[in-house]
């Protein structure tokens, strides 16, 4: 069920992860967290989330690189990139990545994420 789909939040900023968890759990998602690109790949392989909310600026790997690695894991995985910056600050890189889309951090909401799942049913 999409309603209790598992979301992996990948961001090195603890505060963001905490609030994102509260917000997304309230919206009915199950939330897992990862602070680095490597940890994200590890966790994703283990728990097989439905969606990964992936910060582009990570301490170890570039978000685009993590997206490329995650995309190899399974066809059903939806990757949504996020950043404090605007999509326009990344030029064509977002469109060129395997991510389904981009949500600016300040526009993050359960509704916004659910839209990506509706667009791509499992």
């Amino acid at each position, binding site marked *: 069920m999409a309603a209790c789909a598992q979301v992996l939040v990948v961001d090195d*900023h603890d*505060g*963001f992860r905490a*609030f*994102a968890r*509260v*917000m997304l759990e*309230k919206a009915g998602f199950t939330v897992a967290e990862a602070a680095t690109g490597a940890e994200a790949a590890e966790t994703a392989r283990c728990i097989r989330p439905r969606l990964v909310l992936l910060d582009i*600026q990570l301490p170890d790997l570039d978000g685009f690189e993590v997206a490329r690695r995650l995309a190899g894991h399974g066809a059903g995985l939806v990757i949504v990139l996020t950043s*404090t*910056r*605007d999509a*326009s*600050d*990344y*030029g*064509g*890189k977002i469109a060129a990545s395997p991510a389904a889309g981009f949500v600016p*951090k*300040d526009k*993050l*909401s359960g509704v916004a994420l659910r839209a990506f799942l509706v667009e791509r049913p499992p």
Partner: protein
Amino acid sequence: MSRLLRAVLVAGAVAAVTFNLVTFYVNGWPGPPGPAIYVITSTLVLLAYLVVGLVAWQVHPGERIGLLFTITGYALLLPSLTNLHYALPFTIGTITASLYQACLAHLALAWPYGRLRSRLDRAVVAVNYCWNIGNNAVGILFWNPRTNGCSAACPANLFLVDSSNRLQSDITNSASIVGICITAAVVALIAEHWWSARGYSRRAMTSLIWVAVPIAAYIGLLEVPGSLGVSNLVLYGIGPLILIAAPAAYAIGMFRARTARGAVGAALVGLEPGPAPALLRDALAKALGDPTLQLAFRVPDHRCYVDTGDLPVDADPLPAGRMMTQLDPGARAVLVHDDELRHEPELVRVAAAAASLALEHSRLRAEIQTQLEQVRASRARIVEAGDTARRRLERDLHDGAQQRLVTLSLALGIARSQAAGSHPELEALLESASKEAREALAELRELARGLHPAVLTETGLPGAVQALVERSPVATAVIAVPAGRFPATIEAAAYFVVSEALANVAKHAPSAAAQVMIRQRGGQIVVEVSDDGPGGARPEAGSGLRGLADRVASVGGALQIDSPPGCGTRLRAQIPCP
């Protein structure tokens, strides 16, 4: 030369010529004088030696060459004494009739500065003088002029001891062999001088060879008994004209030395300003007529010198025959040349002055060039440091304040949704707080972008230009942008050209259409932004364009603004890109 001496010499020359003319016509008395050609020739030769001697004495007072010419001139006058109808001068004239030949040999061996070089030279000259006088003095003892080729009107030979002219002719015949040998020795020594002459003096010696050979041949002809049957008219009427070659050659040499001073200037004017040292050396060598000239520079903190090809130069001590002329008070640059040039101090002084001027010019140019390069490099570093600082600031904003505002905004959103329904006032308050936070974030994002465009770091020019165009209120077409990545400073310069140009269009011609074209060609990136607005942009009026020109210049590029009123504006930056 003192005024008195000059007056004496001039008077002497005038007297000598007068004496020559008068004695010639006295000789004819009581009968008619001989053909005028004799007196014309002898007067011309006499004049040539006396005039050149006088001038040489005047020009080079420290040299004996002028004196030698003058003495030779008077020696040429001595045979005229025989024209006088008195026994004493007649006898003296007979004994010294060929003294001028010894003087000529002396002159040739002391060429061109009037000093004999070696003991051998001195010996040959001394033997020649003694032989010349002695031979005639012995011959005269057995020569009775009245019975031998001279009319009864001839004065008496005061030294006559024996009238048998047969003995006299025997002595003359055997003496001629010695005379020819001495003449040959003199010629051989001249050839040796020429052969060993190097550099500057070689030219002077070459001119001597040209005159010494015909003169020696003429004198040799006079020595040969019967003079190979050459008629007296040719032998004494025309032949002596050959003797004029020596003063003529010397006069030409003096003239050449004088024009050489002008040639120094001409040679250096022909050079590029601030010439390469090797070219300067060649010009100086040519101007001074010394192919061996070296332009040498002292190795800093050492006493040794190197030439323009960085080869060591013998300067301490100087080899024999070499001379050093300093080009600056500290002798950091010197000319090492043939020491015969010491006879041309004026020429060397002019050349040294010109050379030091040229070197000073080169030094200043090099200094300015170095300073310019330093300034360019420091400008590039300043701009780069500024870029780095802005990039760091943008990142700090992104990682710090922006991040916190995002979190705050999320927290407010969550709080608002929790207050929804139960606390409508609180919900409204949280909604407006959340809106504030979002606006603050948007402003901060814009600020960060102005500091340094993250998109440029992320995607290079194509993405960055696209983002600029999308955000710009002006209708802009992107014609071309090279896909590859370039050094950060170059990308930044190109980016800011487009950014500033589009900002200007938005400000001054918001309804115009613009075009952006970036091309990489021939080792440079050409950025062109044009619009169809009203034109008339003046770079000096706005600090924006001037700052942009500075930024482009900092990476070695150039910015052109073409903005005729009514015809739109075209901004074109050419940025070198290795």
